[in-house]
Every structure is written in structure tokens, then in C-alpha cells.
């Protein structure tokens, strides 16, 4: 079934192979050679859902031949919460709070994709300040997500200290979130029409300070990991995924770019202010764990660049559209204007009505293509909400990337795929 990747004669490491090693039937199960099973050489281990390094509640049933993984089956659904169904029972502006809770690491991206779908159905114009601020927040969130990934990923290789260093910067980002939204996670800062509140005083200075320190911190991380023979040995040539396989398995985001496919929705279908900011899309060709690490590290630098440009180019003006049928009226008007009071009452009790129709809005979340499919029947509640989550899709690639890995590799590969189970199970 599998084509063994060619080995580099000098280093004896597998090289990235050409073509695909996926058989006709795309495996979500890596099956054991029955001969081995008859010989009694197979040790079946239940890896998770409670295990130190399964990123939440991923359960892997692995068949081991010695330390080698020869069979693998992923069991998901332990974190199924029925987010999508719940959202159908809530009015649009209440349902927004559900979206970020699916992916509790890249919450702003989830929040934005749902809001963007609503706005597309409403055909709303968003004021430029809100657009730019959203871009800034999404990029900060990408940094946040990659920092969590780097910290836990390095932790899983045994480099404990990286976790704390990454969480130091993560904390700085959470402070910024707290400043704008009042909450450190699940800020619900975006809403149909713009932002929930104006950008607070002092935010630009704080954010600037963060942008000034962050590149040096990334240098620090790279110094700790890239210069370390053990880390390189553990990550290079491990968890191979060829470009053809990655595309066939529907991969996106850093996993796809690490396999040498130059694809980023921010650039190919620009949304928000991504058209107006200057950034590169990092691509690596090796398709191994190290390439995924490199892509994410470079993305972090690009994110800092984008945040900096957003800070410099932030336009003045209103932070929310003046669309009284959708957006809550300003508080002070409630005491003087009957119209505003009625709007306020209608919005809070019934919610806004969204014209009939269906949309699919994809964005580039830190994990890849995050899409929201939204169907409206014209009422105040979504008729159907469905998310295309990269964490779920990336699990499809697990058996292909993990075939013939050692247990220790399995950990490194799971970490490099960077799946958040809350998002995969929903």
C-alpha cells in the first residue's frame, strides 16, 4: 500500500517523495498486516482520550510492533458539544458567542468567520476602522495560536522550558485581548456591523510595545530549538506528507504549505484588510514535522509584520456600521429617541432578521481553511450553521503521516498537525 519514501544516501533520512502513497480508498485507519497479528507481535494500546499529549481528547487506538506504530485508528467525538445545533436555536447576535468556543485557541478566527457569514447575508458595509482592527485581532490571534502550538509541541518533545517562554508572550497577547474586549479568551469583540466597542485608549501603545519585543522573542525560540541537534533529529524526516497527499486529503493552512503547496486564502481570496497589507506566505517543501515548524515560525514573523502595518495604517472613524436594523443604537440615544428605544427593544428581544439565502465564507485560520456555511430562512435565527474546521480535516492526514512511525514520532506528528479537538468534535 505505502510507497516507502526515498532515503537520502548521506543522512539516511527519508527524503520527501514524489507522488502519493494513498491507496484508492483514503485511509482514516492504518491497518495492520494480518501476518503480524497472527504471530502475536502486536501490542494494542489505547492512546487517550486521557493522555498527557493528545491535545485534549483525541483518542488513538494504536497497534505497536515493538515501538513502531503499524496500526492506527483515530476515535473522535469526545468533545462533541453540539455547537452548530445550539447556534440554530439562538438569535444571530447570541449565536456569535458560541463560535469562538469551538476552537478555544484560535477563538477570534472562529468568531470572525461566523460574523463574516452573517454580514455577507446582510450585505453590510463595514467601516474601515473595524476592518483594520479585525485584521489586527486576527493576526494577534494567529500569533496566540502558534505560540500555544509551539509551547505544547516543544513540551511534547520533552523541551519543557519552551512552554513557559511561549506562554509569557501568549500572556501579553491575552492582556491585549483583555484590554479591547474585557475578556482574555472568547472576547466576542466582533459583531455584525463592526466591533463591539471602540478601540480603548492606550491600546496602540501596548500593542506597539508587543510588536517591538516579539521579533526578538521569536529569535529566542528559534535559537533554543533550531540550534539543537536533538530537536532537529526528532523533527526532520518525520511525519512525511507529500504535496499530492496533502491536497488529496484536503489539507490546508500550515500543514499544506509545509508540503510545498503555495496556498493561503488571505492572499488568494483576500478578506478584511489583507489586500492592503504587505506580507509573505511562507512555504516549505519538505513536508515533515520540521517543515511545519518552520512554516509556523515564519508565519509568526509575518503576523507581527501585519499587526505593525495595521497599527500604522489604522483609519479613524466609526467602529461600527450605522445600520439601525442590525446594530444596537448608542446608549445615550435611548433616553431621547423613541426610534432608538424601539430598535433596541426589537434587537434585544427578537434579534435582527437576516435575508433568506445561503453562504459559505472561508478564511485562513491559524490551522488552515476555516469555513462557515450559513443558511438563513429569513428569520432571526440561523436555519443551519455548519463549520468546515481544519482541525477535523487534519486528522484525516494522521494515518498517512504516521505510517511506520515510532511512538515518539507519533507524538511529534500529532503535535505538528496542530489540531484542537474542541474544533474537530464541535
Amino acid at each position, binding site marked *: 500500500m505505502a510507497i516507502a519514501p526515498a532515503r537520502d544516501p548521506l543522512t539516511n533520512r527519508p527524503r520527501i517523495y514524489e507522488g502519493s502513497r494513498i491507496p484508492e480508498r483514503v485511509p482514516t485507519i492504518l491497518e495492520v498486516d494480518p501476518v503480524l497479528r497472527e504471530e502475536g507481535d502486536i501490542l494494542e494500546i489505547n492512546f487517550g482520550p486521557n493522555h498527557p499529549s493528545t491535545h485534549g481528547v483525541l483518542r488513538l487506538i494504536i497497534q505497536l510492533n515493538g515501538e513502531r506504530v503499524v496500526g492506527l485508528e483515530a476515535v473522535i467525538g469526545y468533545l462533541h458539544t453540539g455547537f452548530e445545533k445550539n447556534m440554530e436555536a439562538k438569535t444571530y447576535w447570541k449565536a456569535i458567542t458560541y463560535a469562538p468556543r469551538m476552537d478555544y485557541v484560535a477563538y477570534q478566527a472562529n468568531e470572525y468567520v461566523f460574523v463574516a457569514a452573517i454580514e455577507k447575508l446582510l450585505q453590510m458595509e463595514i467601516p474601515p476602522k473595524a476592518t483594520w482592527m479585525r485584521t489586527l485581532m486576527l493576526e494577534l490571534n494567529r500569533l496566540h495560536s502558534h505560540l500555544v502550538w509551539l509551547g505544547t509541541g516543544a513540551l511534547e518533545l*520533552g523541551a*519543557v522550558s519552551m512552554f513557559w517562554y511561549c506562554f509569557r508572550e501568549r500572556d501579553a497577547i491575552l492582556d491585549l485581548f483583555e484590554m479591547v474586549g474585557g475578556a482574555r479568551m472568547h472576547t466576542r469583540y466582533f459583531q455584525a456591523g463592526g466591533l463591539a466597542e471602540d478601540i480603548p485608549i492606550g491600546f496602540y501603545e501596548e500593542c506597539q510595545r508587543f510588536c517591538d519585543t516579539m521579533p526578538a522573542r521569536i529569535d529566542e525560540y528559534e535559537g533554543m530549538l533550531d540550534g539543537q541537534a536533538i530537536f532537529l533529529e526528532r523533527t526532520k524526516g518525520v511525519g512525511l506528507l507529500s504535496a499530492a497527499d496533502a491536497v488529496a486529503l484536503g489539507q490546508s493552512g500550515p500543514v499544506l504549505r509545509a508540503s510545498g503547496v503555495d496556498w493561503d486564502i488571505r492572499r488568494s481570496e483576500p478578506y478584511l484588510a489583507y489586500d492592503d497589507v504587505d506580507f509573505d506566505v511562507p512555504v516549505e517543501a519538505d513536508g515533515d514535522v520540521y517543515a511545519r515548524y518552520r512554516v509556523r515560525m515564519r508565519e509568526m514573523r509575518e503576523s507581527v509584520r501585519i499587526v505593525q502595518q495595521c497599527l500604522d495604517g489604522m483609519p479613524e472613524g466609526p467602529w461600527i456600521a450605522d445600520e439601525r436594523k442590525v446594530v444596537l443604537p448608542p446608549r445615550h440615544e435611548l433616553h431621547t429617541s423613541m426610534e432608538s428605544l424601539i430598535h433596541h427593544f426589537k434587537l434585544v428581544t427578537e434579534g435582527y432578521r437576516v435575508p433568506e439565502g445561503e453562504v459559505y465564507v472561508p478564511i485562513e485560520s491559524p490551522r488552515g481553511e476555516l469555513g462557515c456555511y450559513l443558511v438563513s430562512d429569513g428569520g432571526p435565527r440561523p436555519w443551519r450553521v455548519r463549520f468546515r474546521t481544519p482541525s477535523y480535516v487534519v486528522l484525516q492526514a494522521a494515518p498517512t503521516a504516521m505510517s511506520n512511525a515510532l511512538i515518539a514520532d507519533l507524538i511529534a506528528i500529532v503535535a505538528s498537525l496542530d489540531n484542537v479537538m474542541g474544533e474537530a468534535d464541535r
Partner: protein
Amino acid sequence: MTPALAQALVEPWWISVIKAFVIANLVLGTFAYLTVVERKLLGRMHLRYGPNRVGPFGLLQPIADLMKLLRKASFFPKGAVTMLYILAPILAAFTAISAFAVIPFGPGWEIGGYYVAGQIVDVSIALLLILALSAVGIYAFVVGGWASDSKYSLLGSMRTCAQLVSYEVSFGLAVLGVVIMAGSLRLTEIVAAQQEQIWFVVPQLVGFLCFFVAGVAETNRAPFDLPEAEQELVAGYHTEYGGIRWGMFQMSEYINMLTFSALGVTLFFGGWSGPILPAPIWFLLKLGALIFVFMWLRATLPRLRYDQLMKFGWKVLLPVATLNAIATAVLVTIF
């Protein structure tokens, strides 16, 4: 004190017993505070504080830990081989502590008309004894993991078997250079030889590096902590152990680290000898420095993979250690 004088003053047996009692307790006390030191040190390296709640500066932390471990319900898996399961941690702790008996920490003193030697027993095969005890100690990890009837423990045991056995060989070869230079397996004589010549770390630098790497692997410390790799095997061979039994495994790990560092000090850094300060203080200072390196490694390095570990052990460490021993032997014979 010259060996001749030491020979003349034979220590009464009851002094040895008292000393054994005192030293065993000292080692246990050191172990207890080593955990605090390690946690505080790691904390500083990790940008956090480490334990600082129990007592002043967290100094009562080990006592609290001990009480917690003692009071935990002692359960064991239904399928466990009961006797082996219970004996394994005891064996681990026993071999770890008893290896300390031959480590010299001073020249010997005359107290109240009695001669008190600088170690509990001064046997002529001290170095071999330590190697043998550590080899017996491996059984505890292997048997303990096997007897607890858990797949993760079994994998941990498997790794222990492979890792410790292969690094034991390099460990033995790495110290061979020192033995050849000192012409003795007796640790007191090795210290004396270093006082006459030079700290063996200078001529035996390669030997020391091999010794250190093999020692880190022997004591299951990062980056060689595969037998208990938390992120892979939950807790490796002691996955199914809880309460004070787990504590004993932990204790044996720390005491092994202590013994190994003490051995390193004795073999390569002149043992207890040093100017001005009294001998035990010098011994402790050197010991502390070596242990600091252990902790530093843990904070910095990721874990090796199983096959890389074996490859490194057999293809790099063993040849280097062997060549070092041969080169030393040739040079010592010529000069």
C-alpha cells in the same frame, strides 16, 4: 592522612554502624531537599517561582510531599504480580541508598581517640560495587514495570532494559581510564592519586564526558528520560504506582543522581580535596555543581527518540569510551 596511618587506626565496628545510620539519613535528607532545589531551579529557568507556599521559602515542601504520599491509598492493579510489584520500589530505593556507602567525603578524622574514616566502608572493589549495585537496581525498574500489568508500564520496562543495559557498558568503559591511571578500584586511593597528580578530569576529559552522558542515561534523566517519558508513555514503568511506592521510585531516581554525581566528583574532580575549606564542604560544593548541570539539562533539552538513543549509545558513546580506555592504557604503559 596517609594510607599507612589509616591502616594503623582501625575503626571500631560500632562507629561504622553509627556512621551508616547518619549518612543514610543525610542522603535521604539531601534527596528531600534536592527535590525542592530542583523545582525551585527549574521554576527560575521557566520564569516562575517554584514551591514557595509551605513554610518559609517553601522549605517545608518535602515534608508536606512525604505526608501526602504516605497518606495516599495504596492500591495496585488487579492483574499485578503482587510480590514483585511491592518489592520493586523497595529494591530500587535500597540499591540507590546502599551505593552511597563507599563514597569518600573526607580524609578521615580522629574523634575522641577513635579513628573515623571518611566513608562508611572502604572496600578494595568500591567502583565495581557501585556498578554492580546500579546493575541490580535496573531490575527494580524492569520488574516493577512488568509486574504492574499495564501496557504503558511494559513499554517503559522495555525501554529501561534496552537503555540501561546498553549505557551500563559505556559507563563501565568510561571509568576504566581513571582506574588505569589511579591503578586501583578503591575510591580512597583514586582520590589520593588525584591529590598527588592532577584532577583526572584534565587527562580524562573524554572519559569524563562519556561518563557524564552515560550517567545521565543511567539515572533516567532528561534528555534520556525515555523509560518514563511523560508525553509518550504517561509515566513509563511507574505508571501504575502511586503513593509512597511511587515516592520510592522517585527517591531512587534522585539518590541515583546524587550517587552518580558523587562518583563523578570522586573520580574526576579530586573528591573531597581542596584548599582552605574543610573536606566535606568541598565535596558538597563539587557535588552541587554537577547536580546543577543535571537540572540545567532537564530545563533545556528535548528528549531523544528510542532508536536515536540506541544508535548514540552503541555507535558513538561505546566506541569513544573504548578508544579512550585503550589510549589511556597505552599511554600509562609507555610513560
